[in-house]
């Protein structure tokens, strides 16, 4: 029985400072199998992986590797035992070549430790070919795209005789075509008998690639099933523990222009951007990584400079004004990276909510804390932010709730134009729905949203219009009801998808 599984986990538990984040988790992995783990943020997925990769120590339970107990796990021992984890952040030496990275630590050397370059690149090429990867082993890693670097990591794992590859949100920053490549790579791994633990909150992917799926919720394993026996609804239900209602409020009457970009350029980055945002409208920006989408929205929000063109809000020009003035006029930027730039994690929910609106909660230089509390309470209620109290530090909140605090900050300021970069990246299904609901709610109140997203579904479902960017230009603006994902994608990559 035991030998049938390459990995078996029994009753593994883990607590942090008395809070139990994993309760008696059982999990197993067969050779050549893709076993997905899904769950909302905070369900315990990352903790489980970190235990397997040796980053955390478990409190209790047993782990069997190939039928043998595997006790003290350190990152080094996990790797030696053939467990390789591929994180969202790349784990390569950026200034070395692909070949050196793959063979790192085992480079073929001649007398006096002189590197045998030819042999190194030949070996690397062999490994890459074996995985059907068309990468130049001599290319410097930092010149590769994120997706290509990921492929190099997988090649490296295979070279190191990995038996188990753990992938943590591997598709988070990949385009559709890149995801396809990744999946064929995973198929290659399976053929070689390597097992994959696949963590993702993109359910479509789970159904495409996984053989089995385990669902974690609040530190408990609530479901395990062969993928063929279930559907998306069952999975979502298991993840959130309740049924989601997916009804959006429909939008009516979009008329006057609130914000307009006229021929905005920044030399060498983007060129001649024209965009009109109407009241109550959501405009999406689509484009591949490197198309200039983030650069454009940051410039439109007044954070980065523009060299040419005009930005007009409510008939007034805003370019050249300070960020403080631009915010006062009603434009805000909700950045992509919540934890690094979006929130002050050591500050409370209240502190974060009012940080952009201090004049509103003060008389002269003095804060009116009572007034602040009342104000924040109303936002916590309207946005259904789940926190123990408004004085709780935001770093203890879940991803979705943190995102809501970010929105609350700008609602509190009385902002009209929300410029959002990846509003739902890294949040779980439930929170995503809620953020979308909040976005719709904002537009119903006559506010305008400009949103960058890598997620085509999000763009298609949420936006009234999608501006497609390529090479620093807006190549087309499409009305969503009349367009298709394929059309958006074909403009974004600059060729017809069907030809591929």
């Amino acid at each position, binding site marked *: 029985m035991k030998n049938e599984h390459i990995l078996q986990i029994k009753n593994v538990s883990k*607590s942090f*400072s*008395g*809070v*139990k984040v994993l*309760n008696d988790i059982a999990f197993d992995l067969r050779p050549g199998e893709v076993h997905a783990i899904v769950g909302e943020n905070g369900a315990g997925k990352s903790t489980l992986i970190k235990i397997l990769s040796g980053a955390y120590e478990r409190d209790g339970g047993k782990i069997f590797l190939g039928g043998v107990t595997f006790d003290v796990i350190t990152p080094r021992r996990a790797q030696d035992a053939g467990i390789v984890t591929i994180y969202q952040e790349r784990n390569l030496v950026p200034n070395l070549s692909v070949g050196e990275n793959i063979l790192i630590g085992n480079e073929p050397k001649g007398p006096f430790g002189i590197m045998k370059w030819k042999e190194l690149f030949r070996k690397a090429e062999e490994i890459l070919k074996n995985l059907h990867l068309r990468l130049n082993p001599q290319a410097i890693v930092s010149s590769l795209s994120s997706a290509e670097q990921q492929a190099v990591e997988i090649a490296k794992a295979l070279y190191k005789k990995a038996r188990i590859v753990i992938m943590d949100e591997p598709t988070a920053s990949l385009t559709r075509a890149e995801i396809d490549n990744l999946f064929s790579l995973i198929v290659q791994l399976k053929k070689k008998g390597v097992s994959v633990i696949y963590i993702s909150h993109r359910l479509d992917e789970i159904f495409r690639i996984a053989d089995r799926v385990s669902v974690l*919720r*609040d*530190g*408990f394993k609530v479901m395990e099933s062969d993928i063929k026996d279930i559907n998306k609804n069952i999975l979502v239900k298991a993840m959130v523990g309740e049924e989601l209602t997916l009804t959006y409020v429909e939008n009516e009457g979009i008329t006057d222009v609130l914000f307009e970009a006229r021929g905005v350029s920044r030399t060498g980055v983007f060129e001649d951007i024209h965009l009109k945002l109407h009241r109550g409208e959501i405009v999406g920006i689509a484009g591949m990584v490197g198309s200039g989408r983030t650069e454009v929205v940051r410039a439109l929000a007044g*954070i980065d400079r523009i060299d040419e063109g005009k930005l007009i809000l409510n008939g007034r020009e805003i370019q050249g004004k300070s*960020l*403080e003035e*631009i*915010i*006062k006029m009603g434009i805000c*930027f909700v*950045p992509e990276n919540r934890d*690094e*730039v*979006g*929130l*002050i*994690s*050591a*500050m409370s929910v209240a*502190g974060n909510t009012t*940080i*952009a609106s*201090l*004049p509103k909660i*003060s008389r002269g*230089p*003095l*804060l009116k*804390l009572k007034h602040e509390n009342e104000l924040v309470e109303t936002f916590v209620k309207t946005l259904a932010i789940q926190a123990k109290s408004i004085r709780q530090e935001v770093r203890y909140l879940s991803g979705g709730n943190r995102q809501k605090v970010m929105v609350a*900050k700008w609602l509190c300021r009385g902002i009209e134009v929300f410029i959002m970069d990846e509003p739902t990246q890294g949040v779980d299904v439930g929170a995503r729905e809620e953020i979308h609901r909040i976005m719709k709610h904002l537009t119903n109140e006559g506010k305008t949203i400009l949103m960058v997203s890598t997620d085509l579904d999000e763009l298609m479902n949420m936006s009234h219009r999608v501006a497609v960017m390529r090479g620093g230009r807006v190549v087309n603006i499409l009305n969503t009801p009349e367009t298709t994902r394929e059309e958006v994608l074909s403009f974004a990559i600059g060729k017809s998808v069907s030809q591929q």
Partner: protein
Amino acid sequence: MPSENQSVSSKMFRRIINVQQWGIIIVLILLVIILGISSPVFLSARNIRNILQQVSTLGILSMGMTILMISGGIDLSVGSSISVVAVIVGKLLKAGFPVGYPIIIGLIIGCAIGMINGLLASNTRAHPFILTLGTMTLFQGVAIIITEGYPITDLGDKFEWIGGATIGKVPFIVILFFAVMFICFFVLKYTRLGRKGYAIGGNEYTTYLAGINVRLHKIIFYVICGFLTGLASLVLSSRISSAIPTMGAGFELQSIGAVVIGGTPLTGGRGSVWGTLTGVLLLGIIANGLNLLHVEASWQYVVTGAVIIFAVILHEHRAQ
């Protein structure tokens, strides 16, 4: 089931946090009990007054450092700034200016020094630790140049009043220290300025994106620290009635130590004046107690160092 489990464990979690926050206070109380038992003089009113008087300089200095460090800054030059302010004030007093002028000029110089540090910290990408390491050395040189290395003694009765006066039975400088502390507490908790300090220390870029003039506020926090450094310098030179060109040396590390013992991390974003008060008292009581027990001065360094390390580990543990 899971929710029940969680609420029980989260209560436990809170209790642990509390215990750790009280850690330094418990150490302080234990220390007082031990010293009270081993030295009959320790808990006498006179000795307590003595301790408070001794920590006032460090206390005033550390309050400024607290505000600065909460906002993510740090100032290693406060020690030499004390010396610079003291020798300039000393020169002016010796030149016969009425006592009010040197005092005001001393405070202005403190602010100016803070401004220099603030301008450097907010306009360059270098870490303030290194920048103020530079100004620390620089100001030390300035203090020695001004005095040509000689101490200035006998600053006059009027100036000595600051360090010697008592109101009721309480020394004036102790009252000054507590007044400074309450004002700093008020600024941090109840003013926009204080809130911005926590925000900038917590995440500078986010605060900038929220439309706050981060650069200006950083300078303000350095100026506040500089002003209180000037005040601390006046208190110190008045108490010893002299201005010595190296009199401030070592104060920078003591005050950063007090702030860190009090739970304000080097990275900023959190912290309080109450924490710093416990840090200041702890350092003061250790020095006083070891003196009473006739422990050699060299061992006082060892004990103080150990306490700082212990406190940092305790806070580190809590942060995780």
